[in-house]
Protein backbone atom coordinates (compact mmCIF):
# COMPACT_ATOMS: atom_id res chain seq x y z
CA UNK A 1 0.00 0.00 0.00
CA UNK A 2 1.02 3.59 -0.59
CA UNK A 3 1.34 4.67 3.05
CA UNK A 4 3.68 1.78 3.68
CA UNK A 5 5.83 2.79 0.74
CA UNK A 6 5.94 6.33 2.08
CA UNK A 7 7.13 5.13 5.47
CA UNK A 8 9.88 3.16 3.74
CA UNK A 9 10.84 6.31 1.87
CA UNK A 10 10.76 8.23 5.15
CA UNK A 11 13.00 5.62 6.76
CA UNK A 12 15.34 5.83 3.77
CA UNK A 13 15.62 9.59 4.36
CA UNK A 14 16.74 8.96 7.92
CA UNK A 15 19.28 6.33 6.88
CA UNK A 16 20.59 8.74 4.26
CA UNK A 17 20.92 11.43 6.90
CA UNK A 18 22.93 9.08 9.12
CA UNK A 19 25.10 7.77 6.28
CA UNK A 20 26.10 11.24 5.12
CA UNK A 21 26.57 12.51 8.65
CA UNK A 22 23.99 15.22 7.99
CA UNK A 23 22.85 17.06 11.13
CA UNK A 24 19.64 16.07 12.88
CA UNK A 25 17.89 19.06 11.28
CA UNK A 26 18.16 17.33 7.89
CA UNK A 27 15.78 14.57 8.96
CA UNK A 28 12.32 14.31 7.44
CA UNK A 29 10.13 17.38 7.87
CA UNK A 30 6.75 17.58 9.59
CA UNK A 31 4.81 17.20 6.32
CA UNK A 32 6.66 13.98 5.47
CA UNK A 33 6.12 12.75 9.03
CA UNK A 34 2.37 13.44 8.78
CA UNK A 35 2.14 11.67 5.43
CA UNK A 36 4.07 8.68 6.82
CA UNK A 37 1.64 8.46 9.74
CA UNK A 38 -1.53 8.80 7.66
CA UNK A 39 -3.52 6.15 5.86
CA UNK A 40 -3.73 3.67 8.69
CA UNK A 41 -5.88 0.58 8.17
CA UNK A 42 -9.25 0.45 9.88
CA UNK A 43 -8.47 -2.61 11.95
CA UNK A 44 -8.12 -1.61 15.57
CA UNK A 45 -4.81 -2.53 17.18
CA UNK A 46 -5.37 -5.16 19.86
CA UNK A 47 -2.04 -4.56 21.56
CA UNK A 48 -1.64 -2.16 24.45
CA UNK A 49 1.46 -0.32 25.62
CA UNK A 50 1.29 -2.28 28.86
CA UNK A 51 1.33 -5.57 26.91
CA UNK A 52 4.34 -4.38 24.93
CA UNK A 53 6.21 -3.42 28.10
CA UNK A 54 5.39 -6.84 29.59
CA UNK A 55 6.59 -8.62 26.42
CA UNK A 56 9.92 -6.76 26.67
CA UNK A 57 10.39 -7.83 30.30
CA UNK A 58 9.34 -11.43 29.48
CA UNK A 59 11.85 -11.49 26.63
CA UNK A 60 14.66 -10.58 29.02
CA UNK A 61 13.47 -13.11 31.61
CA UNK A 62 13.06 -15.93 29.07
CA UNK A 63 16.32 -15.20 27.26
CA UNK A 64 18.63 -13.80 29.93
CA UNK A 65 22.19 -12.75 29.11
CA UNK A 66 22.98 -12.11 25.45
CA UNK A 67 20.22 -11.11 23.04
CA UNK A 68 18.36 -14.12 21.56
CA UNK A 69 19.06 -14.91 17.87
CA UNK A 70 15.50 -13.95 16.94
CA UNK A 71 14.63 -10.44 18.07
CA UNK A 72 11.41 -9.70 19.89
CA UNK A 73 8.75 -8.87 17.28
CA UNK A 74 5.32 -7.25 17.28
CA UNK A 75 3.81 -8.35 13.95
CA UNK A 76 0.65 -6.32 14.74
CA UNK A 77 2.68 -3.11 14.38
CA UNK A 78 4.46 -3.96 11.16
CA UNK A 79 1.75 -2.88 8.74
CA UNK A 80 0.77 0.27 10.61
CA UNK A 81 1.72 3.72 9.33
CA UNK A 82 4.90 4.85 11.05
CA UNK A 83 8.27 6.56 10.81
CA UNK A 84 11.58 6.55 12.63
CA UNK A 85 13.71 9.50 13.74
CA UNK A 86 16.82 10.09 15.78
CA UNK A 87 16.64 12.18 18.93
CA UNK A 88 19.82 13.18 20.79
CA UNK A 89 19.82 12.80 24.56
CA UNK A 90 22.43 13.66 27.17
CA UNK A 91 24.59 10.62 27.98
CA UNK A 92 22.74 8.06 30.13
CA UNK A 93 19.98 10.62 30.62
CA UNK A 94 16.44 11.33 29.45
CA UNK A 95 17.19 15.01 28.81
CA UNK A 96 16.69 15.88 25.13
CA UNK A 97 19.59 17.89 23.73
CA UNK A 98 18.77 21.32 22.23
CA UNK A 99 20.14 19.97 18.92
CA UNK A 100 17.02 17.77 18.77
CA UNK A 101 14.45 20.37 19.85
CA UNK A 102 13.62 20.91 16.18
CA UNK A 103 12.83 17.22 15.69
CA UNK A 104 10.41 17.24 18.64
CA UNK A 105 8.76 20.40 17.29
CA UNK A 106 8.41 18.77 13.87
CA UNK A 107 6.78 15.67 15.40
CA UNK A 108 4.35 18.02 17.16
CA UNK A 109 3.60 19.85 13.89
CA UNK A 110 2.89 16.49 12.26
CA UNK A 111 0.63 15.28 15.09
CA UNK A 112 -1.36 18.55 14.84
CA UNK A 113 -1.83 18.04 11.09
CA UNK A 114 -5.59 17.81 10.39
CA UNK A 115 -5.14 14.49 8.57
CA UNK A 116 -4.13 12.92 11.90
CA UNK A 117 -6.89 14.47 14.00
CA UNK A 118 -8.27 11.99 16.55
CA UNK A 119 -5.67 9.25 15.95
CA UNK A 120 -3.63 7.60 18.69
CA UNK A 121 0.14 7.08 18.57
CA UNK A 122 2.84 4.96 20.14
CA UNK A 123 6.14 6.66 20.93
CA UNK A 124 8.62 3.77 21.06
CA UNK A 125 12.17 4.37 22.31
CA UNK A 126 15.08 2.11 21.29
CA UNK A 127 18.68 2.02 22.56
CA UNK A 128 21.86 0.41 21.23
CA UNK A 129 23.40 -2.56 23.07
CA UNK A 130 25.75 -0.55 25.30
CA UNK A 131 24.69 -1.14 28.91
CA UNK A 132 22.60 -3.88 30.48
CA UNK A 133 19.39 -4.97 28.76
CA UNK A 134 17.21 -4.29 31.78
CA UNK A 135 18.84 -0.89 32.31
CA UNK A 136 18.28 -0.02 28.66
CA UNK A 137 14.58 -0.81 28.94
CA UNK A 138 14.32 1.72 31.79
CA UNK A 139 16.43 4.32 29.96
CA UNK A 140 14.43 4.04 26.72
CA UNK A 141 11.17 4.24 28.68
CA UNK A 142 12.31 7.44 30.40
CA UNK A 143 13.42 8.85 27.05
CA UNK A 144 10.14 7.96 25.34
CA UNK A 145 8.32 9.54 28.32
CA UNK A 146 10.46 12.71 27.94
CA UNK A 147 9.44 12.98 24.28
CA UNK A 148 5.79 12.43 25.17
CA UNK A 149 6.06 15.07 27.93
CA UNK A 150 7.58 17.65 25.55
CA UNK A 151 4.93 16.95 22.89
CA UNK A 152 2.26 17.68 25.51
CA UNK A 153 3.93 20.80 26.96
CA UNK A 154 5.02 23.10 25.29
CA UNK A 155 3.56 21.65 22.06
CA UNK A 156 -0.03 21.03 23.15
CA UNK A 157 -0.50 17.49 21.82
CA UNK A 158 -3.45 15.80 23.53
CA UNK A 159 -1.98 13.48 26.25
CA UNK A 160 -4.79 10.98 25.63
CA UNK A 161 -3.49 10.15 22.13
CA UNK A 162 0.12 9.43 23.16
CA UNK A 163 1.52 6.28 24.73
CA UNK A 164 5.26 5.91 25.42
CA UNK A 165 6.97 2.50 25.39
CA UNK A 166 10.65 1.72 26.08
CA UNK A 167 11.96 -1.16 23.97
CA UNK A 168 15.54 -1.06 25.29
CA UNK A 169 17.90 -2.93 22.95
CA UNK A 170 15.42 -5.75 22.28
CA UNK A 171 14.79 -4.65 18.66
CA UNK A 172 18.13 -3.55 17.24
CA UNK A 173 17.88 -1.95 13.85
CA UNK A 174 21.31 -3.22 12.85
CA UNK A 175 21.91 -6.45 14.82
CA UNK A 176 25.30 -6.96 13.11
CA UNK A 177 26.48 -3.67 14.63
CA UNK A 178 24.68 -3.63 17.98
CA UNK A 179 26.56 -0.60 19.35
CA UNK A 180 26.00 1.49 16.21
CA UNK A 181 24.17 4.82 16.53
CA UNK A 182 21.52 3.73 14.01
CA UNK A 183 20.05 1.55 16.75
CA UNK A 184 19.29 4.59 18.92
CA UNK A 185 16.00 5.81 17.55
CA UNK A 186 12.42 6.77 18.20
CA UNK A 187 9.55 5.11 16.37
CA UNK A 188 6.19 6.87 15.96
CA UNK A 189 3.32 4.52 15.11
CA UNK A 190 -0.29 5.38 14.27
CA UNK A 191 -2.42 2.90 16.25
CA UNK A 192 -5.77 3.97 14.81
CA UNK A 193 -8.66 6.34 15.42
CA UNK A 194 -9.14 7.12 19.10
CA UNK A 195 -11.46 10.11 19.12
CA UNK A 196 -14.40 11.30 17.08
CA UNK A 197 -15.80 14.85 17.10
CA UNK A 198 -19.27 16.20 17.74
CA UNK A 199 -21.16 19.19 16.39
CA UNK A 200 -19.53 21.77 18.63
CA UNK A 201 -16.08 20.27 18.38
CA UNK A 202 -16.29 18.17 21.55
CA UNK A 203 -14.35 14.93 21.30
CA UNK A 204 -15.52 11.51 22.41
CA UNK A 205 -14.25 7.97 22.14
CA UNK A 206 -15.34 6.67 18.73
CA UNK A 207 -18.20 4.15 18.94
Amino acid at each position, binding site marked *: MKPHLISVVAAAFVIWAVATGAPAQQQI*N*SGQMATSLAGVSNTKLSLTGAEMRQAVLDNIRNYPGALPPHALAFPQLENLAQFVVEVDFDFNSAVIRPSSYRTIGAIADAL*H*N*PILLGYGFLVIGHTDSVGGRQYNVGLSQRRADAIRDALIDPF*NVNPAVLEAVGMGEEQLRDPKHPTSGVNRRVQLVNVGKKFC*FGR*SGEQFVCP
Partner: protein
Amino acid sequence: MNREISLVCALWLVLAAVLPVNAQTMSYADAISQLAAACRNDIARYCKGVPLGPRLKTCFDTNEARMSPQCQQTRAAVYTSISRRAAAQRNIADACGADIPRLCGTSYADAHLVECLLSVSPAAMSPQCNQTFTDTGWRTERARQ
Protein backbone atom coordinates in the same frame (compact mmCIF):
# COMPACT_ATOMS: atom_id res chain seq x y z
CA MET B 1 -24.94 32.39 22.20
CA ASN B 2 -24.74 36.08 21.23
CA ARG B 3 -22.76 36.75 24.34
CA GLU B 4 -20.37 33.98 23.39
CA ILE B 5 -19.85 35.45 19.95
CA SER B 6 -19.28 38.97 21.28
CA LEU B 7 -16.80 37.55 23.78
CA VAL B 8 -14.89 35.83 20.99
CA CYS B 9 -14.99 39.06 18.96
CA ALA B 10 -13.70 41.08 21.91
CA LEU B 11 -10.92 38.58 22.49
CA TRP B 12 -9.99 38.72 18.84
CA LEU B 13 -9.90 42.52 18.88
CA VAL B 14 -7.58 42.47 21.89
CA LEU B 15 -5.30 39.97 20.13
CA ALA B 16 -5.39 42.02 16.93
CA ALA B 17 -4.40 45.13 18.87
CA VAL B 18 -1.50 43.41 20.62
CA LEU B 19 -0.11 41.45 17.69
CA PRO B 20 0.99 42.83 14.34
CA VAL B 21 -1.75 42.46 11.75
CA ASN B 22 -1.39 39.47 9.44
CA ALA B 23 1.62 38.20 11.33
CA GLN B 24 2.04 34.48 10.93
CA THR B 25 2.67 31.99 13.66
CA MET B 26 5.80 29.87 13.32
CA SER B 27 5.69 26.11 12.98
CA TYR B 28 6.56 24.43 16.28
CA ALA B 29 9.73 23.10 14.62
CA ASP B 30 10.84 26.59 13.54
CA ALA B 31 9.85 28.14 16.87
CA ILE B 32 11.72 25.71 19.08
CA SER B 33 14.82 25.58 16.87
CA GLN B 34 15.00 29.39 17.00
CA LEU B 35 14.92 29.07 20.77
CA ALA B 36 17.63 26.40 20.72
CA ALA B 37 19.84 28.59 18.50
CA ALA B 38 19.35 31.91 20.28
CA CYS B 39 19.54 30.45 23.80
CA ARG B 40 22.13 27.66 23.27
CA ASN B 41 24.71 29.27 25.58
CA ASP B 42 22.18 30.41 28.15
CA ILE B 43 20.61 26.95 28.33
CA ALA B 44 24.06 25.38 28.78
CA ARG B 45 24.91 27.88 31.52
CA TYR B 46 21.66 28.25 33.48
CA CYS B 47 19.38 25.37 32.49
CA LYS B 48 21.74 22.45 31.90
CA GLY B 49 19.95 19.14 32.33
CA VAL B 50 16.51 20.79 32.44
CA PRO B 51 14.09 18.82 30.24
CA LEU B 52 12.27 20.50 27.35
CA GLY B 53 8.84 21.25 28.80
CA PRO B 54 7.33 23.27 31.64
CA ARG B 55 10.53 23.07 33.69
CA LEU B 56 12.55 24.71 30.90
CA LYS B 57 10.05 27.57 30.78
CA THR B 58 10.33 27.96 34.57
CA CYS B 59 14.13 27.95 34.28
CA PHE B 60 13.93 30.76 31.71
CA ASP B 61 11.60 32.72 33.99
CA THR B 62 13.87 32.26 37.01
CA ASN B 63 17.04 33.29 35.17
CA GLU B 64 15.56 35.89 32.85
CA ALA B 65 17.64 38.81 34.15
CA ARG B 66 20.89 36.95 33.51
CA MET B 67 20.11 35.74 30.03
CA SER B 68 21.42 37.38 26.87
CA PRO B 69 19.12 40.00 25.31
CA GLN B 70 19.00 37.95 22.11
CA CYS B 71 17.78 34.88 24.03
CA GLN B 72 15.21 36.90 26.02
CA GLN B 73 13.80 38.46 22.88
CA THR B 74 13.64 35.18 20.95
CA ARG B 75 12.15 33.32 23.87
CA ALA B 76 9.29 35.82 24.20
CA ALA B 77 8.53 35.63 20.47
CA VAL B 78 8.75 31.83 20.45
CA TYR B 79 6.41 31.19 23.37
CA THR B 80 3.96 33.82 22.07
CA SER B 81 3.91 32.13 18.68
CA ILE B 82 3.46 28.66 20.17
CA SER B 83 0.51 29.70 22.34
CA ARG B 84 -1.06 31.72 19.54
CA ARG B 85 -0.91 28.72 17.17
CA ALA B 86 -2.32 26.41 19.86
CA ALA B 87 -5.16 28.86 20.61
CA ALA B 88 -5.98 29.19 16.89
CA GLN B 89 -6.19 25.40 16.46
CA ARG B 90 -8.39 25.17 19.54
CA ASN B 91 -10.69 28.05 18.61
CA ILE B 92 -11.05 27.69 14.85
CA ALA B 93 -14.68 26.56 15.06
CA ASP B 94 -15.56 29.70 17.05
CA ALA B 95 -13.45 32.13 15.03
CA CYS B 96 -15.00 30.81 11.80
CA GLY B 97 -18.42 30.28 13.35
CA ALA B 98 -20.14 32.60 10.88
CA ASP B 99 -18.09 31.41 7.88
CA ILE B 100 -18.49 27.68 8.34
CA PRO B 101 -22.22 27.33 7.56
CA ARG B 102 -21.83 29.70 4.59
CA LEU B 103 -18.65 28.15 3.15
CA CYS B 104 -18.75 24.55 4.33
CA GLY B 105 -22.36 23.80 5.22
CA THR B 106 -21.31 21.92 8.32
CA SER B 107 -20.61 22.72 11.92
CA TYR B 108 -18.59 19.60 12.67
CA ALA B 109 -15.25 20.70 14.11
CA ASP B 110 -13.43 17.72 12.65
CA ALA B 111 -10.99 16.90 9.87
CA HIS B 112 -13.68 17.45 7.20
CA LEU B 113 -14.22 20.99 8.39
CA VAL B 114 -10.49 21.69 8.20
CA GLU B 115 -10.37 20.15 4.71
CA CYS B 116 -13.19 22.46 3.67
CA LEU B 117 -11.43 25.55 5.08
CA LEU B 118 -8.21 24.49 3.31
CA SER B 119 -10.13 24.45 0.03
CA VAL B 120 -11.66 27.91 0.54
CA SER B 121 -9.80 30.94 -0.81
CA PRO B 122 -8.62 33.30 1.97
CA ALA B 123 -10.49 36.15 0.25
CA ALA B 124 -13.80 34.35 0.76
CA MET B 125 -13.26 34.15 4.53
CA SER B 126 -14.07 36.86 7.05
CA PRO B 127 -10.85 38.59 8.21
CA GLN B 128 -11.20 37.07 11.68
CA CYS B 129 -11.65 33.55 10.30
CA ASN B 130 -8.80 33.96 7.84
CA GLN B 131 -6.39 35.31 10.46
CA THR B 132 -7.18 32.50 12.90
CA PHE B 133 -6.96 29.87 10.16
CA THR B 134 -3.60 31.35 9.10
CA ASP B 135 -2.47 31.15 12.73
CA THR B 136 -3.31 27.45 12.92
CA GLY B 137 -0.48 26.84 10.45
CA TRP B 138 -2.56 24.23 8.62
CA ARG B 139 -2.06 25.85 5.20
CA THR B 140 1.72 25.82 5.53
CA GLU B 141 1.72 22.28 6.94
CA ARG B 142 -0.38 21.08 4.00
CA ALA B 143 2.15 22.66 1.62
CA ARG B 144 4.90 20.59 3.28
CA GLN B 145 3.22 17.26 2.61
